[in-house]
């Protein structure tokens, strides 16, 4: 019994040859020197789909870099997460991006990569506004229609929903940590959420997944923050 197991193991390793692990299908082979089909949902500043159909944002830049590495051409397919994940599962798409969080519920349809960056959503103050000792009772400006409104209520703060945080509200504001420098804000030590960011690949395409993860894990936190800040500026100017 044990001898058989050892034998099968050796054969498997020999079969593997040079590339380990291999895809169940042929995704990596197809993408290399070919077309990278990317599903995208809008999640600024990570991704943004312009009216003209172009895709911008930090993760769009990263996808382009990955494609360049693999000598591939990017094809974008905007859509809802539900429809994109189904397409990913059927290997119609090779990758889905759009501010995905490691806690995303798509583990049945897709394989989420290892988190490549962790970003905090924090309460910050502009110059001249004192940092609140406690959130309870404090008025805090927050982008309307986001989960952070509820998070603030959970801390018994008073959310002041705004269409866009500019740093000129004269109040403590809720922002992603990458916006501190750009808006001239100061962190207060209160954090509302932590997001581990991931991409989604077809399940079982392990060579492809390892290739994508190798690319993502080589990124530094500062590099991603820089891309996010650039995306915010681009959006503001557009």
């Amino acid at each position, binding site marked *: 019994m044990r001898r058989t*197991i050892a034998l*099968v*193991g050796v054969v*498997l*390793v020999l*079969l*593997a040859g040079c590339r*380990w*692990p*291999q*895809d*169940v299908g042929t995704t990596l082979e197809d993408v290399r020197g070919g077309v990278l089909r990317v599903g995208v949902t809008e999640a600024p500043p990570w991704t943004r789909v312009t009216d003209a159909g172009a895709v911008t944002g930090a993760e769009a830049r990263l996808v382009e870099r990955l494609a360049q590495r693999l000598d591939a051409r990017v094809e974008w397919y905007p859509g809802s997460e539900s429809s994109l994940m189904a397409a990913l599962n059927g290997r119609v798409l090779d990758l889905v991006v759009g501010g995905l969080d490691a806690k995303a519920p798509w*583990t049945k349809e897709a*394989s989420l*990569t*290892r988190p490549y960056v962790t970003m905090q959503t924090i309460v910050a103050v502009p110059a001249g506004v004192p940092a609140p000792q406690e959130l309870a009772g404090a008025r805090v400006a927050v982008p309307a229609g986001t989960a952070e409104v509820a998070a603030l209520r959970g801390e018994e703060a008073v959310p002041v929903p705004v269409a866009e945080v500019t740093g000129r509200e004269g109040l403590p504001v809720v922002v992603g940590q990458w916006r501190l420098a750009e808006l001239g804000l100061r962190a207060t030590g209160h954090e509302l959420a932590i997001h581990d960011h991931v991409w989604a*690949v*077809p*399940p*079982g*395409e*392990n*060579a492809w*997944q*390892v290739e994508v*993860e*190798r690319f993502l*894990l080589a990124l530094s936190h500062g590099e991603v923050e820089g891309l996010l800040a650039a995306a915010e500026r681009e959006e503001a100017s557009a």
Partner: protein
Amino acid sequence: MRVYDRFELPPDKAELHRRAVQLEWWTIAFFLVAVALLALTLGQSQAMKAAWIEDMLGLVPPAAFLIAARFRNRKPNDRFPYGYHRSVSIAFLAGSVALLGLGAYVVYDSLVRLIARERPPIGLIDVYGHQLWLGWLMIAALFATMVPAILLGRVKQRIARQLHDKVLYADAEMNRADWLTAGAAILGVLGIGVGLWWADAVAALVIGGDIVRDGTRTLRSAVANLMDNRPRVVDGSRPHPLRDNLLTAVRDHDWVADAWLRLREEGHVFVGELLVVPVPGTDRLVERLEELGAFARKFDWRMHDLVVAPVTRIDAAEREGSDRVRGLPYPQAGRPSGQESRTGSAG
């Protein structure tokens, strides 16, 4: 005379039992560590869920053994006049249900994965700045859980045979099931590495089938035990020779014209009734009967509690009938019979 023995095990066996208790504590510790180790390497995946359930089930036999160990030696009392030996048989039932449950779960889980054509993803992990395929780490973790399971299982099996402890035996089978599933999982991970999505599920299916067979056999044996079947050796492969040997030894007494013996298993020990037909004109019959009872108890440490009763004759048909149920031709008592129909043709 003393109606029953206070203690189940003679000193050397009691020492073995203490070792078994220690081993079972180690087993529980091992399973808890294994759960933690797998949680670290597998995260929140489906595979983790399966490993979690397997390890939970693996905790059942040692826990049952340890609980039974606290009860088995208690003195008989008004509420339980036969004592607590059967707690071991109940633990055996619990352990065998867990073993069968494990097998059934492994088969179910791998079938579902096969039918859904689930392609398991295994990506990279970052270990102190080194990027490593997670599969290698999984294989290392699985291998680390395999080795103690093999060692524990072997020692337990040896002690179980000497103690006539079927719970311990079922637990050893559980350890075997564990390292086999771990081995299957290693093959599965390697298979995934070469791009065979079904390797994991197929390997688990084969091993699952083996565990189901094992579990079914053990469960049947446990239920038969509670039905007071003829005692069988600890792995259930053949009838226990004690009854035939003892009956032959009893018949060897020159004042015994005929004898009839029936035994049942109560955990570690055997309990039963012995009918003897004295040679006509035997003097000191009551003393001789008492002596015979003491002789039987000394005959083997497993012989624990035996009622000896004198009768004038033993009906041949009765004798034949009772033996036919047990599937052993009566006159050849003492000869080990390999082929015994387990269900019998009781009528």
